[in-house]
């Protein structure tokens, strides 16, 4: 037997590379697979032993079924909407034929949002809130980083507001929005604005802090280069400060986006903005035997989206940053 093996044309390097290949495969695929399998087993066992007033806690199987039914509801709702528009078109065409002066009205379908519509709403809300925060935080952070006095004045405020929970802000924002945002034909709903502003208020701080640290830790030698060249203020910021602090700014943005996504779910629950948070809340209030499984499905989706958003930000950071070493995971 051993003689046969020895006769096989295997050279040592190929054995080594095979070993490396296997170990890298096991790192990327096998170990995570084992981890997930163990987790699912633990979940299944634990779920069977938890009895709630809404029945047993949902195991993986129940959640998987709910994904199916959520998708089914989505396609059914879409089909209904399509039919509604078809009917409307036919009806309008008929009335136009009878009376050419008739001004055809197009009404929007007002069915309920499906799970997938709610995911989309959440993504729109979190992105808008985050972008608004970035537009405030990055210029403010740069100004703070450049000016020690401004930093000393603003820093205490940042430090105090940073740990505030979104749930504390929400009532205040709700009242302020209903007082100030009065319009007969509102562009966006109040609930959207409430969630958006809550997201903004909570995701502002990591960006402010990281940007100001990035800017203020600018290498003294580079500052001297700028002084010797007599670069004007704006050019100094554009040519030296911004590129130097891009890695820190992006780190702040990634942190902020993570915070924004967490905050959003809480905000939507209370603001009743039609997003994932509202979905969770509605299911909770609904209290059917499927509710917990549907909430668990939402939890998994929320986790996945959060993960993808973070990866997206990391990609963006890699593209924008000159310092590739600063963007390792």
């Amino acid at each position, binding site marked *: 037997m051993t003689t046969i093996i020895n006769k096989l044309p295997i050279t040592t390097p190929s054995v080594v590379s095979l070993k490396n290949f296997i170990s890298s495969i096991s790192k990327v695929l096998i170990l995570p697979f084992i981890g997930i399998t163990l987790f699912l087993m633990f979940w299944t066992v634990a779920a069977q032993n938890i009895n709630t007033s809404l029945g047993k806690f949902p195991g993986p199987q129940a959640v998987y079924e709910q994904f199916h039914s959520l998708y089914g509801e989505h396609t059914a709702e879409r089909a209904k909407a399509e039919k509604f528009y078809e009917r409307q078109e036919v009806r309008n065409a008929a009335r136009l034929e009878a009376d050419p002066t008739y001004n055809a009205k197009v009404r929007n379908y007002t069915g309920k949002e499906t799970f997938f519509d709610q995911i989309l709403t959440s993504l729109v809300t979190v992105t808008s809130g985050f972008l608004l925060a970035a537009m405030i935080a990055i210029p403010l952070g740069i100004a703070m980083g450049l000016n020690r006095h401004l930093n000393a004045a603003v820093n205490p405020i940042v430090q105090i507001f940073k740990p505030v929970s979104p749930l504390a802000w929400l009532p205040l924002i709700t009242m302020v929005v209903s007082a100030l945002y009065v319009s007969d034909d509102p562009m966006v709903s109040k609930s959207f604005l409430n969630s958006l502003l809550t997201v903004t208020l909570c995701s502002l701080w990591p960006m402010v802090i990281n940007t100001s640290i990035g800017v203020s830790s600018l*290498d003294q*030698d*580079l500052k*001297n*280069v700028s*002084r*010797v*060249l*007599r*670069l004007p203020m704006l*050019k100094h910021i554009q*040519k*030296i400060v911004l*590129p*130097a602090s891009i890695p820190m700014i992006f780190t702040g943005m990634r942190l902020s986006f993570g915070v924004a996504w967490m905050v959003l779910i809480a905000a939507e629950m209370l603001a009743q903005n039609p997003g994932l948070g509202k979905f969770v809340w509605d299911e909770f209030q609904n209290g059917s035997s499927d509710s917990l499984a549907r909430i668990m499905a939402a939890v998994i989706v929320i986790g996945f989206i959060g993960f993808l958003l973070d990866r997206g930000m990391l990609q963006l950071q890699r593209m924008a940053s*000159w*310092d590739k070493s600063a963007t390792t995971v």
Partner: protein
Amino acid sequence: MSAFLDISHIDMVFPTPTGDFTALKGVDLQIKKGEFVSLIGHSGCGKSTVLNVVAGLYQATTGGVILNNREVREPGPERAVVFQNHSLLPWLTSYQNVELAVKQVFGNKMNKAETKEWIEHNLKLVHMDHAMHKRPNEISGGMKQRVGIARALAMQPEVLLMDEPFGALDALTRAHMQDSLMEIQNELNNTVIMITHDVDEAVLLSDRIVMMTNGPSATIGEILDVELERPRDRLSLAKDIEYNRLRAEVLTFLYEKQRKVENISSKKTATTAKKATA
């Protein structure tokens, strides 16, 4: 005739939490146009402080600097600085680093083609034209320093200030850079102030060597004229009697007259001085 660059009775006092720290006391030096002057002394003696005052990055507490009949009040490209650790912008290529300086200094005097030609000319001068479009992290330490010198030269400074330009390089690269610098100096005949730790470097490159006493209250101890013929060649100079005499003089100054007494209290002052000059 008044000197081209007049460093006139400079005192430099840094306020520290434990009271004022006098880094420089009565530094007085006149430099002619086209002269190559080295500042040598132990670390922490305030060499960099002198250079920073000339650059305008620091304001002298008393006294001042007059360049070409104008008082130095702020940094400017007519006093270009080559920093010790190259200070290239890491996100720009060699070409772009020089370009930033050229555009800022000659922005409205040169058109596009002239700008490009001038940048490339300066990179060629330091033998970096082959790696113009590489970023600092893709080239070696010596190459970075070359680009730093090209950037400074591209500003066409009246005085070139070099703060231990080759201090961070290994001995072989350093020798190579010194030869390059002599070659450039032969061509351009700039006025240069260079800070160095290296006795051989000082003797090889300079017209005059300014030796500084130890801080605090450092000042100029002795000035040595180097009248070796140019172009200089390090190999033949190694056996030259005059070269070795000059070398011995500097060594005597540094290790006999200004020997650093290593006890704890003087170490303490040395570190505070370093902090103040950093």
